[in-house]
């Protein structure tokens, strides 16, 4: 069924296009004035100004250090296995490998690489990590001139990641172990 939409015939004044012209003049002038003299622009000048990233944002994953500046990662390789796009590659220390840089942790990765071109920012590595050593942080604009540049190695990841005390699991373990050395055990 066809619906007939009634169109009001234009009045003579409207037919002159003058109200439309004046209306357009007003709107455009208002906007131009606002942008020019009142700083009412709606755009942001991106590289200098950036959006404030909300909490819980899933940006680029970086490795974090604990409060003593030690690498938290213990090279368990869970994140490597869980990573859907296979962006993470961990080189474990091996038999005669690198000692962990804190007491009571068994090992730390010899090399830890994240290919930021592969990473899909899903956050599974953060969820799976038993040590809370990897976190999706707030960086969203990773720039490089070559593909190689965007494979971030351990130093870079640690430097970018910063410090996150987190649960401090190994510190408590160390305290417990020290307490056990002196007998009788305090309760």
């Amino acid at each position, binding site marked *: 069924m066809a619906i007939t939409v009634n169109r009001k015939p234009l009045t003579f004044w409207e037919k002159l296009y003058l109200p*439309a*012209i004046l209306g*357009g*003049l007003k*709107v*455009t002038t208002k*906007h*131009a004035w*606002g*942008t*020019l003299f009142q700083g*009412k*622009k*709606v*755009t942001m*000048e991106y590289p200098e100004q950036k959006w404030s990233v909300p909490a819980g944002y899933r940006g680029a994953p970086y490795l974090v250090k604990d409060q003593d500046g030690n690498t938290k990662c213990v090279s368990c390789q869970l994140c490597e296995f869980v990573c859907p796009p296979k962006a993470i590659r961990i080189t474990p220390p091996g038999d005669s490998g690198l000692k962990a840089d804190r007491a009571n942790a068994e090992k730390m990765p010899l090399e830890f690489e994240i290919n930021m071109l592969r990473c899909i920012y899903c956050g599974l590595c953060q969820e799976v990590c038993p040590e809370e050593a990897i976190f999706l942080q707030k960086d969203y604009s990773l720039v490089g001139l070559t593909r190689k540049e965007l494979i971030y190695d351990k130093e870079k990841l640690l430097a970018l990641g910063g410090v996150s005390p987190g649960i401090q699991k190994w510190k408590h373990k160390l305290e417990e172990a020290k307490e056990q050395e002196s007998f009788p055990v305090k309760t």
Partner: protein
Amino acid sequence: MDWNFIIFSLVKIAIVVGVVQGLVAYSVLAERKISAWIQDRVGPNRTAPPFAKYIPVLGPLLTRWGMFQPLADGLKFLFKEDFTPGGVKKIYFWLAPAVSIIPAMLTIAVIPFGSMLGHQKMVIADLNVGILYTFGIVSMGVYGIVLAGYAANSKYPFFGGIRSSAQMISYEISMGMSVIPVLLIVGKLNLSQIIGWQSTHGWLVVYAPLAFIIFMVASFAETNRTPFDLPEAETELVGGYHTEYSSMKFALFFLAEYSNMVSSSAMMVTLFFGGWTLPFWGLNHPANSLGMGLAQILVFLLKLCFFMVVFIWVRWMFPRFRYDQLMDLGWRRFLPLALVNILITAIVLWLRS
């Protein structure tokens, strides 16, 4: 033939072409900036040659204002691949940009952009039939567009070309008719003499406001600017008549459009707004000193720039006219209006004589 005339004419042509092309380049920037402001944006403010940041205050400031943007645009056009699609009619395809830009540049020749500088009249060709020449040349501009639409062998440019020809024909007539009251009042076809008349009697826009409005609307249609940009309607015809063009050939169409804007602004200033004259500070009479002559050229340029801004401004005020509305406006509104205007002017002049 005296050498003095040839040399001075060549110098004037070189300077005028340079200034007009500069104006065209910077009106593209103005278009981008003004449209940005109207749309609550900032507009181009990054482009700069590498040395710009070493100039203390001026460099960053000019970069903020986008002053280097036209340079980058021009370079981009020059260095892009000049692609000729298969199936085009090559000769016409190559000819069309030239046919488009030559009339656009030729119109400037008769426009007096100043009174005197030394002993030289500040007009390239002081023709006695200045207005007729302008109309003759302006009508040629349509050939470039129609030819481009035809040569591209593609449907959208073809539509653009057809629309353009129809539009040009309908507005050409109202444009010509709208100027006749001016000619009746002044009684001369020479643009310098029309300005001379305005310097003693006042601006013609006061005597023939209706003629000015019709002329202005018709010149919007002639230059294919919104609300009459049907030949290149991006939303309907991809890019209109220049869809298939690339690189410098496209740039020539672009330059032609803006040169047309410059020349129509210049025509409006000359015919209705007193050209280089200003009713105060003695700018009314032909200059007898160098400073005065330069001041009058400046006055002309300022008036011209004002109309350029109006051209750009209007683009963000109106939606595009529908094809039949455009025809309706041209044939059934403006043509009768222009005829009535001629009649009224003639009667008033007859009663007063």
